């Protein structure tokens, strides 16, 4: 799976998981804040993404993940290790 596929999967996952109060186009650069998510919501989202994508997020570095593209990037970087 290439980056574009992973990004598309993460966007689909987010759309499925996050109910939006207002119409918003979800792209790789869409920020969590923009989507109305607080830090607890993001923590829960990353937790669920771990199971969905077979990765393990480093909780100490989770604050660096602020948008959808960050999740996709993290998966691409860590996936070989996670699936080994």
């Amino acid at each position, binding site marked *: 799976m290439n980056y574009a596929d992973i990004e598309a999967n993460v966007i689909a996952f987010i759309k499925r998981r996050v109910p939006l109060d207002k119409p918003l186009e979800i792209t790789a650069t869409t920020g969590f804040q923009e989507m109305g998510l607080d830090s*607890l919501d993001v923590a829960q989202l990353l937790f669920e993404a771990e199971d969905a994508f077979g990765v393990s997020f480093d909780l100490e570095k989770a604050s660096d993940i602020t948008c959808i593209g960050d999740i996709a990037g993290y998966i691409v970087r860590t996936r070989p290790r996670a699936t080994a």
Partner: protein
Amino acid sequence: MRVVVTGMGIVSPLGIGLEPFWRNALAGANGVRRIASFDASAQRPRIAGEVPDFDPGRYLPSKQLDQMDRFSQLALTAAAEAVASAGGLSGYQPQRLGVCIGTGMGGYGSFEASAARHFRGLVPAPLTVPRAMANAAGAWIASTYHCTGPNLTFSTACSSSGHAIGSALQLLRAGQVDAVIAGGAEACVLPMTMAGFHALRALSTAHDDHPAGASRPFAKGRDGFVMAEGAGLLVLEMAERAAERGATIYAVLAGYGASCDASHIVAPDSAGQAAAMAAAAADAAIAPRAIDYINAHATSTPLGDIVETRAIKTFLGAHAGEVAVSATKSLLGHTIGAAAAIGSIAAIMSLRHSVMHPTVNLEEPDPECDLDYVAGTARKRHIRVALCNAFGFGGNNACLLYTRPEALEDI
């Protein structure tokens, strides 16, 4: 200074809402079934009282659902019915609205799920603590109805919601609040929690192939209680204010009695139970002989039902034979921290409609249980005063006394 019940909401194994609960209770329906929420095939018992067809998404926004354990979801669903039946609480200042919730185990389901992950080397869900904490249900009710006054959670095992409702009565009498959403919620039909109760030999195991016969308070051959889930909530307020705003008054909450056996961590004691019943009557300034109906704690354990029978006799003396007693747990199992609230709702419905639901599975009573238990089918009777008993592990007893709205003047 009378405190009245102006709203009621219930989610139970007999259905979601007051109407199905009471209709099914009067019919002697049974809410105990094979466990559906998880694979219980490898454990005993394999039966429980689960709320059928509970889809919290029908009642709650999805973001809130993620943040809540099932016990909070049940509580919030019951609260919605209670507040709606009270006609809303918008006439009160937010800081004058309180919440008192009882729960024995709180969000054990969330804790069990996260523990299972942790011990497999996986990180637990980030919402483990806010979902599992016992005061979560109260917090969600407060934020939903903007109750910024006192918000208290009581955890005294099977008497939790008795103390929640009784303490709400005291907050109202003390003038600290104008209205309280009070009751209890429990969602502990769970693999590990049930294994713990089973290890204690507290649960019925002899009826896994005939679930409806398992919860049999006062009957010969009973062998333990049946775990159940549910929530019951009341809206309580001062009679004068309720009358001013034209609210329907379902009953008067006339008295609350509390005691501790101070003897054994799980075995009940009739002296402590009788003391709590007497304290409730004294608090209401009502003579014990005025009591017409007792919604018993009656969990279907071999010892508990005998001890409660003895305690009622100690408390009422010769009048014990004239009182009708019924066991809501015979219909739906034991909802632990929600039991006193659900028992209270049954008692209030009996006061309002002059009919008592039956105690089922009581074809053959235990010779040591010899009161009038409304066995088999519902019975009509004009009830002016009803007592609801709740006795928890730790010897923790809570009794609540309800009367018909017009009854207090002439008792």
